[in-house]
């Protein structure tokens, strides 16, 4: 909390609030409960890792927090605003990088950056400076005139992170940002995430890589829509009495899938 920068929202006392608070957050698609009674708190300025096997509800959780999905029940506040009543105020303060590449293939690297920066209200010199700074920070300057569709996977991910952060959000959601990316690109990607967190930005990230999970300030394990463990990486391994996060992950998944097979 002490490291959190004063946000420009003007909301009274927002600086002292956690970045995210959820209480009993639930999302059902018909009979399928994708997220079940999720209660968690994400302090500001942390790298918060959301872990869990495919279909455990990580993406649905992030989508609810971004205002892309309406919760079935429960409450959530993001950067001090209620996801149900003030989604537009939240959108101005956050960045989002979807699991699937969501930028425009038929726009250039520079045009994509510029377009998203403009949607967040950047204009004139501030816009030019911010776009130039992102191109430099992500080594994208030589590729600025290239169509985004012609970039390789690692470069696309870099551009997506750049587009999600040009407007310096208070909070950025990254949904499996490094899936299918080579190790060198992943390392560079995480170096940027570290920079942002050091500058006071809250980062919520989902991943299947345990070396990435180890770099998070705090972790939450989800399985079949439920939160099954939360805490700092060291606390979690100690709690389960296992040497690595990967061991915990595998153990939790096996424990969780066993009744699922008989139940299903």
């Amino acid at each position, binding site marked *: 909390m002490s490291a959190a920068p004063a946000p420009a929202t003007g909301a009274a006392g927002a600086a002292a609030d956690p970045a995210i608070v959820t209480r009993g957050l639930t999302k059902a698609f018909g009979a399928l409960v994708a997220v079940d009674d999720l209660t968690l708190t994400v302090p500001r300025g942390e790298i918060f890792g959301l872990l869990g096997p495919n279909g455990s509800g990580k993406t649905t959780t992030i989508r609810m927090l971004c205002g892309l999905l309406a919760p079935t029940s429960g409450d959530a506040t993001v950067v001090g605003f209620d996801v149900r009543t003030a989604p537009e105020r939240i959108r101005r303060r956050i960045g989002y*990088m979807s699991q*699937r590449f969501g930028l425009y293939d*038929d726009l250039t690297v520079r045009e994509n950056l510029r377009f998203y920066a*403009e949607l967040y209200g950047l204009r004139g010199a501030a816009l030019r400076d911010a776009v130039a700074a992102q191109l430099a920070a992500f080594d994208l300057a030589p590729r600025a005139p290239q169509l985004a569709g012609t970039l390789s996977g690692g470069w696309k991910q870099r551009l997506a992170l750049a587009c999600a952060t040009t407007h310096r959000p208070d909070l950025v959601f990254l949904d499996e940002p490094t899936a299918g990316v080579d190790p060198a690109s992943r390392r560079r990607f995480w170096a940027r995430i570290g920079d942002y967190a050091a500058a006071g930005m809250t980062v919520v990230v989902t991943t299947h890589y345990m070396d990435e999970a180890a770099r998070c300030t705090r972790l939450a394990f989800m399985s079949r829509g439920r939160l099954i463990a939360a805490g700092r990486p060291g606390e979690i391994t100690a709690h389960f009495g296992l040497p690595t996060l990967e061991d915990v992950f595998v153990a939790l998944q096996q424990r969780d899938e066993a009744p699922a097979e008989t139940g299903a």
Partner: protein
Amino acid sequence: MSGLGTFWPMLRKEFTQMRRDRLTLGMMVGIPALQLVLFGWAIQTEVRHLPTVVLDESRSQESRAFVATMANTGNFDIVGHVASRAELAEAIEGGRAHAAVVIPPQYARDLARGRQAQVQVVVDAADPLASSAALSGAALAGQARTVELLRGTAGRAGAIDVRLRPWYNPALRSAVYVVPGIIGVLLSMTLVIITSMSIVRERERGTLEQLVVTPVTKTSLMLGKLVPFVLVGYVQMTLILLLGSGLFRVPLRGSLPLLYLEALPFIVASLAFGLLLSTLARTQAQAIQLGFFYMMPNILLSGFMFPREAMPAPAQWLGALLPLTYFLDILRGVLLKGVGLGVLWPQTLVMVGFGVVFILLSVRRFAKTVE
């Protein structure tokens, strides 16, 4: 940031993408041009050069003059003379002729006495369109002869009875009637289908999810998608007008600026309807199907092909729900009749109403979610 602050970036993005998509751009211009040429030539309701035999029982100078006038209309090609009714029937049944002119023995005598002279035109009515065209052609010939005769006899002659008098399109050329309609049909077809895919395409490509988590407003998003295509609509309309007047000699009797002004509410209404479909469809294929589903009543019920007056009441009510119905009145009014806003204001108001309602509905229906 104001609500409109996100409109300009949306607009620029759409223009950039449109510029890069050469294939779609080419289709948006090429397809209307091709369709116009096809429709214009294929939908010919007039019948020219109907093979015709003559049974001239009068054998006079006057009867020969009438036959010459008929041939001059271009509707009839005189392919031979027959000597009797039996021969005439044989010619038509055998397919050698599709029409016959019978001039009775007393024709020249009646004309000379200032009485009404009669001429019989027999038409193979198996094709009703061809026969009605032939009949009106014959009536025209009669009218033309009457005028000549009146001139020659200083108003004394009773001449030939003619009641038919086609306005606006004296030669009854169908292209003149059809081409203005084609402008409306092609505009609504291409514009509705193109915009109906616009939002669905972003949904399918995954770009919509990234776009709707930004502060972009629903109105900016919708207008940004709509405005570039207004320009496309005008390019299409200009192209069809140029081809229409070049290839089919479609007249422009009214004010061209008025026509362009009147096109705006129609183009906007069509685009907004496409956007509305785009919010209903989940895939581009669905959007195209919905678009074609919309086209059928437009072609059949708007008065493009069949006069609405001849339709049963429910078909007329359905037609009244289509913006094209009103735009057709405007196109034909301005192009063929040369009338202005003084006559066409009710149609204009209805189209503006459609535009506003469709935009409001599509903005309302569109949700910034991925459900």
